């Protein structure tokens, strides 16, 4: 078949016009950049978080979008590593159409990307719980989960005042999240007049936790607290703990009640307590979100709602500010009071912390039962 010059020109014009239309359509949406662990040890948790963010976008778009435009997520894989998230964020930040971002649940990753966030100067909604993240003067970071100063206070309060236990051991990851939790719990217990009998750190992704378990066993605590970053670590530790005969009451950070951990550890976690920023039956919003998620994803129960809340808060802020100007979005987020999200009631303080309390839950033979919500005043 001969291709005439005219046919070639027409084809080229058609391709060019499709490209222009596509570009125009792309420019006609409000873009939010998402750094998500699509690969690496947090990929399973990341999948649920990304699904939740997409549900929030669907809700926002169904309600008319933002400033009359539909919202679109641009996703980059953060590989569950610090270099990965820095690279992912820099790729997203290079796109001038992106008006805000959804960051990581890992404090260590938020720490790694924070200098770039300051340079870019656009709001980032994130889930890392290291208290210091919002106290380094990074004005563009907005936390959508309660920080560990609250988690530690709730753990300490529940263990000392509800369970009436005084001799404590703590097991924590030596990364930014775990160390932040360790400092906060040590401080909280100190205020209640209690010194830790054991404060035991470990490096992430271990194949054997027996030295940690035996250290706990030797300390003979009445109660143990934990800050595990990765779910398989928590599950492996739980199994070895029970195998080596330790039955101490255990109050863990949210990874202890993650569906991933529960599925891996099974009966090794029965009877443990957890603090949870998100619990499916904690409030009307979390119940509605859980039902919506289950309908969209084959009955699976989500383990968090912070990405859902983060997208909605960001979109609300743009609609309230009536602009995508970063400074005005920031002001709108900080002025947000009494916003009822899936993780609780958001009242942003001047540091960018939106939530100030935790739920206490108990693992009742594999079923996570909501006990109570503890709201802390500053």
């Amino acid at each position, binding site marked *: 078949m001969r291709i005439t010059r005219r046919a070639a020109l027409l084809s080229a014009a058609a391709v060019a016009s499709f490209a222009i239309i596509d570009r125009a359509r792309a420019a006609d949406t409000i873009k939010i950049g998402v750094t998500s662990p699509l*690969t690496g040890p947090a990929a*399973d948790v990341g999948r649920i978080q990304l699904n939740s963010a997409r549900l929030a976008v669907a809700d926002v778009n169904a309600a008319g979008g933002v400033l009359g435009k539909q919202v679109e997520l641009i996703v980059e894989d953060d590989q569950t590593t610090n270099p990965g998230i820095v690279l992912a964020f820099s790729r997203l930040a290079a796109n001038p159409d992106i008006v805000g971002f959804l960051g990581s649940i890992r404090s260590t990753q938020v720490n790694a990307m924070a200098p770039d966030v300051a340079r870019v100067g656009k709001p980032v909604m994130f889930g890392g719980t290291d208290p210091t993240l919002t106290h380094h003067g990074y004005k563009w970071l907005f936390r959508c989960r309660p920080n560990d100063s609250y988690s530690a206070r709730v753990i300490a309060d529940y263990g000392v005042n509800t369970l009436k236990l005084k001799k404590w051991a703590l097991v924590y990851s030596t990364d930014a999240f775990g160390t932040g939790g360790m400092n906060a719990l040590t401080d909280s217990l100190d205020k209640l007049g209690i010194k830790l009998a054991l404060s035991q750190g*470990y490096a992430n992704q271990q*194949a054997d936790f*027996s030295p940690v378990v035996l250290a706990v066993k030797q300390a003979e605590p009445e109660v143990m607290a934990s800050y595990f970053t990765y*779910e398989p670590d928590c*599950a492996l530790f739980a199994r070895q703990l029970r195998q080596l005969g330790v039955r101490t009451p255990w109050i863990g950070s949210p990874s202890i009640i993650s569906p991933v951990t529960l599925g891996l550890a099974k009966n090794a976690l029965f009877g443990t307590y957890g603090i949870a920023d998100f619990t499916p039956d904690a409030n009307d919003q979390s119940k509605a979100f859980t039902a919506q998620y289950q309908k969209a994803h084959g009955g699976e129960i989500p383990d968090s709602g912070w990405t859902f809340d983060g997208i909605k808060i960001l979109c609300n802020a743009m609609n309230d500010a009536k602009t995508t100007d970063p400074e005005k979005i920031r002001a709108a987020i900080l002025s947000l009071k009494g916003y009822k999200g899936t993780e609780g009631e958001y009242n942003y303080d001047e540091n960018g912390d939106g939530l100030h309390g935790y739920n206490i839950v108990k693992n009742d033979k594999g079923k996570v039962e909501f006990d109570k919500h503890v709201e802390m005043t500053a």
Partner: protein
Amino acid sequence: MGILLQLLFNGLGIGAIYALVALGFVLLIRAASVVNFGQGEFAMLGAYFLVLLFKILGLPYFLSIAIAIVMMAAFGVLFAGATYWPLRNRGGIPVIISTIGASIFLENMVLVLYGPAAEQIDGLFDEPGIQVGPVFMDSQYLSILVVATLLVILQYLIFEKTLLGKKLQATSQDKEMASLLGIPVAAMILITFAYSSAIGGIAGILVAPILFVSVQMAGVIALKAFAANIIGGYGSIPGAILGGLSLGVVETLGAAYISVPYKDAFAFLMLLMFLMVRPQGLFGERISEKA
């Protein structure tokens, strides 16, 4: 004393895992002069084959294990065809890089096909373990120790007592000369890859009930297994076993009595000390440059 004995048992158990994976390294080094950085992914793939056969297809547990091992042997041949064969005449470095590339590909392939969810799988025995005095002996660690011992004996017999083993060693030492002597070099190399892949798969199947089945499971143990191989003596079968076991014990005791967060550092400190003081490892031969 009870604590020390418990630590020793767990150290030997985790060391046996390193040793099993190190055995796979040794085979390819001895028979094909290949350092295979995809050895950890062999373990991961073996565990995923077990998940596929046992949990998804619902086959009986021990039949699933047997089929998974056969599948791993077949996969080893494919792996050789993709990573080794096209580069076999270009020296060691291109093959090493090729195996690194293949390991990244395998990890991501499993991630795409199966997803990121870690999977829990049953061990060989229903009982979690037995209590012997103050020591709890995890049944899966015991299984690994027994299987590692059996595999060492099997490998020793194959390499030292059979014609096949002699042919494999001859192929490793000088492929051209082996070919002139009528040894089917290509077949020898494919057999080695198949066997090494099957051993990797066995390691993964045995480790899976302890570390869970996940894309990351390979990374936790492969690097330590390679270090065990260096400590034991490059290419030495008893060295791989002793290197793995000693590495497991040293890091466990170091973690318990000095510092838990620096557990990995003890393992690699041991490696550094061997590289400085006894680079040929525990059982390796002194390597000197020929005139």
